[in-house]
């Protein structure tokens, strides 16, 4: 297989917990295997300073490039023979696109509130391990053009949701 391949893309928080992850390879068949990998990656990298430049490490025959901002930890993993700079380009695309989509407030809270955008972002970067796009502006542009009428974060839903639930209950009781 000669085509550059991405094994996974991870976005973890400052305790190593998942915010959004996407695996493109069968190397980690179970959720437990995935979690073990994330834990290993996180422990290995948490003490490093990957805030100005992307950092890189190698373990278990994987190359992992990573970059942090606030309490967000971004990782891209490739096989041991992968061109490191290609992996770093994918990481930078993901990192910058998330920055654009979160409009500068890059932290865990904001990321979770806009999780839909982040998931779409992952979907636009890599398809089944093959790199789709690495330009952050293009990625963010594609994601944003579908995004709902600007900014209706999940937190605002509480009232609408409560109303909707109430209505649902009402309809049901009326139909009985």
């Amino acid at each position: 297989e000669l085509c550059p391949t991405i094994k996974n893309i991870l976005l973890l928080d400052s305790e190593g917990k998942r915010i959004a992850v996407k695996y493109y390879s069968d190397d980690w068949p179970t959720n437990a295997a995935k979690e073990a990998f994330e834990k290993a990656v996180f422990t290995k990298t948490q003490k490093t300073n990957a805030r100005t430049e992307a950092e890189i490490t190698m373990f278990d025959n994987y190359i992992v490039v990573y970059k942090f901002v606030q309490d967000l930890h971004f990782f891209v993993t490739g096989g041991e023979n992968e061109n490191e700079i290609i992996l770093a380009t994918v990481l930078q695309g993901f990192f910058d696109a998330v920055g654009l989509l979160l409009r500068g407030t890059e932290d865990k809270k904001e990321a979770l509130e806009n999780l839909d955008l982040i998931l779409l972002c992952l979907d636009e970067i890599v398809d089944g391990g093959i790199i789709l796009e690495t330009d952050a502006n293009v990625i963010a542009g594609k994601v944003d053009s579908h995004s709902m009428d600007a900014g209706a974060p999940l937190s605002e839903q509480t009232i609408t949701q409560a109303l909707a639930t109430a209505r649902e209950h009402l309809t049901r009781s009326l139909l009985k």
Partner: protein
Amino acid sequence: ADYSPFLGIEKGAVLQEARVFNDPQLDPRRCSQVITKLLYLLNQGETFTKVEATEVFFAVTKLFQSKDIGLRRMVYVMIKELSPSADEVIIVTSSLMKDMTSKTDMYRANAIRVLCRITDGTLLTQIERYLKQAIVDKNPVVASAALVSGIHLLQTNPEIVKRWSNEVQEAVQSRAALVQFHALALLHQIRQNDRLAVNKLVSSLTKGSVRSPLAQCLLIRYTSQVIRESANNNQAGDRPFYDFLEGCLRHKAEMVIFEAARAITELNGVTSRELTPAITVLQLFLSSSKPVLRFAAVRTLNKVAMTHPMAVTNCNIDMESLISDQNRSIATLAITTLLKTGNESSVDRLMKQITNFMSDIADEFKIVVVEAIRSLCLKFPLKHRSLMNFLSNILREEGGFEYKKAIVDSIVILIRDIPEAKESGLLHLCEFIEDCEFTYLSTQILHFLGIEGPKTSDPSKYIRYIYNRVHLENATVRAGAVSTLAKFGAMVDTLKPRVFVLLRRCLFDNDDEVRDRATLYLNTLGGDGAVVETGEDVKEFLFGSLDIPLVNLENSLKNYEPSEEAFDINSVPKEVKTQPLAEKKAPGKKPTGLGAPPAGPPSTVDAYEKLLSSIPEFANFGKLFKSSAPVELTEAETEYAVNVVKHIFDGHVVFQYNCTNTIPEQLLENVTVIVDASEAEEFAEVASKPLRSLPYDSPGQTFVAFEKPEGVPAVGKFSNMLRFIVKEVDPSTGEAEDDGVEDEYQLEELEVVAADYMLKVGVSNFRNAWETMDADCERVDEYGLGPRESLAEAVNAVINLLGMQPCEGTEVVLNNSRSHTCLLSGVYIGNVKVLVRLQFGLDGPKDVAMK
């Protein structure tokens, strides 16, 4: 506490919420939010039952009614995550096909990706027309979606995707960078089995029409492949496409520069002239502000240093400054590279720098460094003192088992290979077991001491260390120490009385194994006070190796039922059932020290020797002189995989054919190899040992033995034919039919060559060894080697031809040098020690002369 919009989220509740998808009046925002929650759950590792997934899937399909773009986008992602079953796919097919022909680019692109992801192929012919159109769509996102889907589909439906090659070829010319990349990847995969087509593709594209850096990287990879495959036919002359690779070193994208540099360093038999420009750009990367670039460069240079250490020496200064790199992976790679490229005079300075570095890196990095230091020490045996000191220092510091084991293994190997390092090395090990928390390492070291210690100039000084273990350790280590004491007693008569006193004290140990061993040894060594010389059979008992595979012994013991009749060790089969050889050992990795037998032959030889001596037909051939590395007699991925190991005896040669049956539906019986030795006149077949049965995927061996004139290095060519009875096997039950058919299978030829009679045995000081040899034995000859790719290539070829051990790192040829001296040593059949001094010189541009 952490705020999260998903705090307290619960699967059951979200599944309830998903009912809004069925509302007649859809609220797109609300639906998007619910999908996000579902995706969040899946992303956190939550799973849906079959029923739940089906329910969600059906609900989601209702959302195609909404015209909201954002919601549709989430629906696509959700469907991919649910990976619906075939009958579910039918439900969404028409909706997706509608989107695939929509005017909205986003719909087209995404519907293609989703549909191709979930389809099982039957649908593919229906949508093929749309996909071909999409490949040449003017919107690059749509084109890329179709091309990438094509790459995935090629795995499952190659015959369909191959029909798209005209469209794909057109897309390769696309202006859009990523379309070009995806098209090139697909086009190459479609044609990958057609070498001529790949060749044409590469020739036309390297002339320069590729814009995208990613596509350019692909092209570099394809080009390297073409170079690799053409290298076999075309030895002389300039390497095709090298200029293209070199040109890529001046590309503006770093990923392309690096890809090209790496490709050049990995060329087969790369010359120093070819390497130079690649090393130069990698050197620039070493001082980059980006850690990724530094890492990529140093990792590549590290690999180059294994084969061309001299080519990397120019980067040594940059590399030394990387020892203090914040990124420890980079620092470790820099150090191990320096250890490979450094010369004898720089060792001490380097060791000083490493000592500071070792304290703040993780164990796994330390192991890498320890292994590098071990090979450095083998390369420069004169430096053993400072390197051995370094190892013993780090042995005393904190560290986990794997790390300590790596250090101990290294010391053991150095003791074995460098006689001068023996005594100090043994003392370092003694000091280590004084304070060693790992039982395994203690017992292994005690065992090793028992073998090596008695042969030293003053064996008595080790006794104290060993006996201390009897006082201070757990039972396992105590028992080990007792055995070691006994070995000293057996080998050194002057120590016998003292050893007896110590062993007698062990008779009161509170562990029965320790007491038993002490009793046994006192009796076998004659501990009744009289100092007698130790008998041969006692020595054999103490030092001889167990010639029975432990697995077999274990099985026999398990099957043994206590009765009047004592367990008979001779009843244990000696034949090794599965392939005993460590052929899959990582290349370049030395066999680790402790498990292997002492002094001399590496463990595989020992295994072969046992195997052969267990076969009665070969038992009287005498001592095994040499076993070759396995030579493949079949191509990879054929029905039957066979390789051969040549075992050389004084008057015989035994071919060991290792066979593997790769067909699950077949059982092979009575497998033999028919050898035609008509082109090997001095050989006469004397015995053949067939393999009774060869089931699927469990390797077995068959042997053929030849007689040859004693002590004569006879050479010859042998052609081989595998003959066997094949029986059909029902794969479901695994049972074979009763009747079989006789069949044959042609194998490749094998040759016995002069190098098979040569053992690689190094000497630590070549000059001394050379001078002590009788001048009468010296022969001087000159040979013209004709045109060669490079001096280094010629040196390598001669080393391989002679099968001898290069000494003092002289197998490495300096960059651009016009002459070279290479020192080789070995032992020829009949135990003749051979030293060779090869002088190479360049005559004209490429002719190499050798003296």
